[in-house]
């Protein structure tokens, strides 16, 4: 949902679609940007600082030390336990997203070192069903946490999610408990868990593993919350306050540790992870 909303919002300003090939239009300020410039800026508009969504593989490139990444996700595949049909059957929906992303479900991750610190890095894929959490996402997060605990690795999760996967009903709700409980092993072994919240992170993901991290970082202007803004507007029948549920608002409200520009994220993450390490230079 949120991605459509994003585009809708931007269009009121820029009107245009992306110009093909070398140029791209900033979704926030409408500036024409060299694709290469935007890539070098890790998807951040050099003019207005807007953080564009980037593919999960780019997240791995940004955060993992070069050549250190070794995927662990991909073997667990979703099934249609409820025989769920809305405007189309769930299996067809899944097939479409699988085709589009080349992934069985909305998560990608693996072992990596980050600034030399042994880690498990997991990235949610918003392009797959809005990053919604069903059984597969829950299972991969739980396995990732368990692996981190087993191999004495830091746990780093980059989130982007519209919430729970409705098509898996109560089973998707249960992933909130499952992921939360799997983190226990990470905490018991005194390993650090850092979450990086990107736009948008809402619903069951925010209300479970994403906000239980030792250190919660967020990208600028990311929408983060439990209920979505539309639901809230319906509830209170008023306009929402300026900046409501955005990173800076949440930082002020004591819910985040820092709002970090993507271009500085690796550096800050490494600092945090090394401050959690007994002897970072021996790592």
């Amino acid at each position: 949902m949120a991605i459509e909303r994003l585009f809708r919002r931007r269009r009121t300003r820029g009107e245009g679609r992306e110009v093909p090939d070398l140029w791209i239009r900033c979704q926030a300020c409408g500036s024409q940007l060299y694709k290469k410039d935007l890539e070098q800026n890790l998807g951040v508009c050099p003019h207005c600082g807007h953080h564009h969504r980037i593919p999960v593989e780019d997240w791995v490139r940004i955060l993992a030390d070069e050549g250190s990444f070794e995927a662990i996700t991909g073997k667990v595949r979703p099934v249609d336990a409820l025989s769920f049909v809305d405007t189309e059957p769930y299996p067809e929906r899944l097939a479409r997203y699988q085709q589009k992303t080349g992934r069985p479900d909305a998560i990608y991750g693996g072992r990596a070192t980050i600034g030399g610190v042994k880690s498990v890095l997991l990235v949610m894929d918003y392009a797959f069903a809005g990053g919604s959490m069903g059984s597969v996402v829950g299972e991969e997060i739980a396995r990732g946490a368990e692996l981190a605990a087993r191999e004495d690795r830091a746990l780093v999760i980059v989130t982007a999610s519209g919430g729970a996967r409705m098509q898996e009903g109560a089973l998707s709700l249960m992933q909130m408990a499952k992921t939360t409980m799997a983190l226990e092993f990470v905490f018991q072994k005194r390993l650090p868990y850092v979450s990086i919240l990107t736009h948008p992170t809402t619903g069951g993901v925010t209300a479970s593993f994403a906000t239980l991290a030792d250190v919660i970082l967020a990208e600028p202007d990311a929408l983060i919350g439990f209920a979505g803004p539309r639901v809230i507007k319906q509830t209170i029948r008023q306009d929402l306050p300026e900046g409501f549920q955005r990173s800076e608002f949440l930082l002020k409200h004591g819910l985040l540790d820092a709002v970090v520009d993507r271009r500085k994220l690796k550096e800050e993450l490494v600092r945090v992870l090394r401050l959690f390490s007994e002897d970072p230079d021996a790592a």
Partner: protein
Amino acid sequence: MPLEFERPLVELEEKIRALEATAREQNLDLSDEIELLKGKLERLQREIFAGLTPWQRVQVARAPGRPTTLDVAERIFEDFYELRGDRAFADDPAIVGGLARFAGRRVVFVGHQKGRNTKENIARNFGMPHPEGYRKAMRLMDLADREGVPFLAFIDTPGAYPGVSAEERGQAWVIARSIQRMSRLRVPAVAVILGEGGSGGALAIGVGNRVLILENAWYSVISPESCAAILWRDAKEAERAAAALKLTARDLLELGVVDRIVPEPGGGAHKNPEGAIRELESALLAVLRELEGLSPEELWQDRYRKFRALGAFEES
């Protein structure tokens, strides 16, 4: 006001009452006719309730007169004392809890609380908690752990409150924390879905070693109305959503999300709350007895295994 599908039952009940009045007033012996009708009523009740659609069950789960947490507390506990507040910001009337004595043993309980009438419902925010409600619940979990007594949670909420006041005080954060806190309990934990089990706001106090559900209660990742609004872009498709979400007691038992269904008396818990509470009482006692032999570590393991196993996927 009766629910749509209850109308034939209401008509029959009225007939019976009319016959009874006639018999009394005119001093006639109509007991045979009355018995006949009562038998018919019972059969019809059974028939109708056996065939309820998921959406109809959602209506039953929301019906006024259904037992609330405090109704249950008043009936099943020998005594209880309500503890209030999160000791930090506010007392949330949408969540209640306290110390209690249940079948001779000490327990700590907590539960969503809907109003028993409109005025009370407004005061209790229709059972939709703010973060301070979950902080009260966590405080009570701390107490149960310290005292080493079982923890009972009664779930009955359309969902955690989706408003500005709740978001700015960290609704998502506190739900995550409450799930974590409950999962860490070192005492037997039992959760019961009394009526509505709305999403994360329900699960926040739902991490029991055993999860029970009343026969006509529902428990889902999203309410049928919201699901319909998103997937069909039309809240009126709630009936279809209710069926698709597999949110009824029987569906949930099959999925492994709940462990036991507590039967409701004929006509539903709202028609006979005392009967429903009696059934709940004996079910609660039975599961507590199952759990009371386990050590704190075993209880944690048991809870971990239960929730770790939930989910459906295949592996390639």
